[in-house]
């Protein structure tokens, strides 16, 4: 088929038309051809209905929390303890020999430790979540102002994800100092039964070589923190919730942040 000579429309082109995989210039050609070939049009219509029907099947699974066993399966198995001991002593030997121990420990996103912003997020969560009257500086009723203000202070456009679907209402947010005095944003959400969660946003230094998004968990005391890096921003979602529930919320946050606009 060519745009000038549309007569033989192939089966493959009909499928591509249904799947939105046809080159844009051929779409009207096939559409016109279908108008003149009702048998083919009926077949194609059935395929379209099938496609929509299939997409609707088991949709609920997408919103289910990820079972812990599956989330755990994304973490490589730990090596055997004796091997770890061996590695540790080797590292120690190398470290002392090479002056490795003099290097700063807070290298952002260094493989072993967690990034500094996670620690900050945990502290902010612990400090502000119990606060009754002053949990947030700017309330959700001034949402546009809140987002604008925090975006300006962090020097990058931010978004306050909405978690109403997940049962968590936005309470508002505040500006916080980071470890070196850099501005950080904190959004707080509340569910009447489950309590409060916080989303902490940090702008990472340019030389931190941001990796593509990868979720990681950290748990200290009752608080689980789910953190990831997207572009130059580090996000940490903290809550005193079952980990699966928090993972589900983090997934919702992540998805909203991915959406343009």
């Amino acid at each position, binding site marked *: 088929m060519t745009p000038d000579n549309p007569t033989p429309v192939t*089966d493959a082109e009909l499928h591509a038309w249904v799947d939105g995989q046809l080159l844009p210039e051929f779409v009207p050609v096939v559409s016109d051809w279908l108008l003149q070939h009702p048998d083919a049009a009926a077949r194609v219509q059935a395929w379209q209905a099938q496609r929509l029907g*299939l*997409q609707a099947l088991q949709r609920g699974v997408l919103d*289910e929390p990820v079972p812990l*066993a599956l989330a755990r*399966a*994304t973490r*490589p198995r730990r090596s055997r303890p004796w091997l770890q001991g061996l590695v540790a002593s080797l590292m120690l030997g190398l470290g002392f020999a090479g002056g490795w121990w003099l290097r700063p420990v807070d290298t952002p996103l260094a493989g072993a430790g967690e990034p500094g912003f996670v620690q900050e997020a945990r502290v902010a969560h612990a400090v502000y979540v119990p606060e009754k009257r002053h949990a947030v500086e700017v309330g959700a009723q001034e949402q546009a102002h809140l987002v604008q203000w925090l975006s300006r202070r962090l020097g990058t456009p931010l978004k306050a994800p909405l978690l109403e679907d997940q049962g968590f209402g936005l309470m508002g947010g505040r500006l916080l100092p980071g470890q070196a005095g850099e501005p950080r944003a904190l959004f707080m959400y509340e569910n009447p039964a489950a309590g409060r969660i916080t989303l902490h946003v940090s702008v990472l230094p340019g030389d931190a070589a941001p990796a*593509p*998004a990868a979720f990681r968990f950290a748990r200290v005391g009752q608080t689980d923190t789910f953190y990831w890096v997207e572009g130059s921003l580090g996000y940490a979602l903290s809550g005193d919730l079952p980990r699966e529930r928090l993972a589900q919320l983090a997934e919702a946050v992540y998805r909203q942040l991915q959406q343009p606009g």
Partner: protein
Amino acid sequence: MGPEGALTHIPRLRRYARLLTGDASRADDLVQDTLERACHKWSLWRPREDGSGLRGWLLSLMHNLYLNQVRDQVHERQAVELDEGNEPSHDPFLHTPERLDLEQALRQLSPALREVVLLVCVEELPYAEAAQVLGVPVGTVMSRLSRGREQLRHLMDGGAPVQTRTHRLKIVK
């Protein structure tokens, strides 16, 4: 990115596996095996420059695991037939209802056709990517897609599967 990058893909993998196997717990087992294999083979994954392509790689790992399962099942089924003869109650095709809903119809497709239909319609992969996941030429994807769609249409209209069924193992005593 480490294997934790697979975390965001889990919900979609679960849905895909559920439609593929038609069974929730078998599906989650398949997802778990896939993730474990991904961790094991992580160093073999070559991300594209924009970091994408992980989903395709996970789907191709799942495809290989699923293929092995299907092969094992065929062996088991043959063993059962050898034990129980041609007892009609064991023929899964015998009681085909007059009209099937879409999910039932999907289950009647052969695994190879079902995979292509799901990758294209539900996972919305470009044909070339679906071909990569399955390790077959694009032409094969197109012909399987065509057969899969026609069989689904037929099944939902109340017909029997169009395919000529593979002949079952005959017992020679």
